[in-house]
């Protein structure tokens, strides 16, 4: 089977297509999209789409001007593209599919996966927030949450 590049495809269309990331086992980015990565990865790591269900992403995309206490609004065409990407890759597994929260860090899945992390670690100033995935998952930026990339920040000695 030969792939033929159609010259009629405009450059703009090709540029806006999502570029598949190299398939690494356990990479939580099922696919990627340039606008999603740029817009949703500017204030925090871009959270993997599969960690929340469609309904959560839809609710979130409707209220970006009031997004967890901050203005994260995007223009309507960007919002449509990102929304479609998130819905396409949203979590459909039992558990995630039933969630209603907009926080990955409040899903039952997250709590189960992190039950061994102790309270003092969550309070560590270098972690600040459970949403700060990259504080412990050093390759979170690339969607890689595997155990070998986990480094729990050292406690700040305050006492």
């Amino acid at each position: 089977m030969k792939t033929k590049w159609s010259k009629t495809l405009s450059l703009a269309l090709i540029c806006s297509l999502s570029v598949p990331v190299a398939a690494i086992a356990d990479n939580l980015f099922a696919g990627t999209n340039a606008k999603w990565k740029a817009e949703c990865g500017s204030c925090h790591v871009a959270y993997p789409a599969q960690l929340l269900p469609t309904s959560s992403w839809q609710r979130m995309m409707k209220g970006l001007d009031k997004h967890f206490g901050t203005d994260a609004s995007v223009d309507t065409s960007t919002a449509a593209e990102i929304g479609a990407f998130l819905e396409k890759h949203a979590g459909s597994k039992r558990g995630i599919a039933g969630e209603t929260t907009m926080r990955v860090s409040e899903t039952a899945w997250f709590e189960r996966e992190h039950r061994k992390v102790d309270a003092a670690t969550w309070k560590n100033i270098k972690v600040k927030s459970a949403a700060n995935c990259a504080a412990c998952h050093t390759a979170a930026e690339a969607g890689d949450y595997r155990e070998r990339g986990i480094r729990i920040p050292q406690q700040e000695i305050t006492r």
Partner: protein
Amino acid sequence: MHIRIHSRLAVLAAACAFAGANAFAATPAEMRKDFEAAAKTAMPGFSGLSAARGEQFFKTTHGKDWSCATCHGVRPVTDGKHTVTGKLITPLAPVANASRTDLAKTEKWFKRNCSDVLGRECTAAEKGDVLEYLLTLNKG
């Protein structure tokens, strides 16, 4: 065959990067000029941009919890840090960051950040003052 496809991809990627980078390209100095012109149109008596006013604006709060410096730091030639998420923000000042040349991006963030810091959009004069201040900063 493979090589051919790859070199095509490379050309395409380069073309995309070029198109992307130049979509709304403007040097910070050009943006500064445009903000000043817009400020003069909005306020006929406007005497010109002021780096001192911009610095003051940047470092103080405006009725809400955050100032611009809360995330961008009091010396915006160095890295800042998002105050809620802890994510690193590369330097805001153009002298320390060559990528501050996308007008659409600059306007988008002014809109968002002014809404968080002032509860409204910034005026052209305010944006121009901030840019005037950022452009006076030296790397050292």
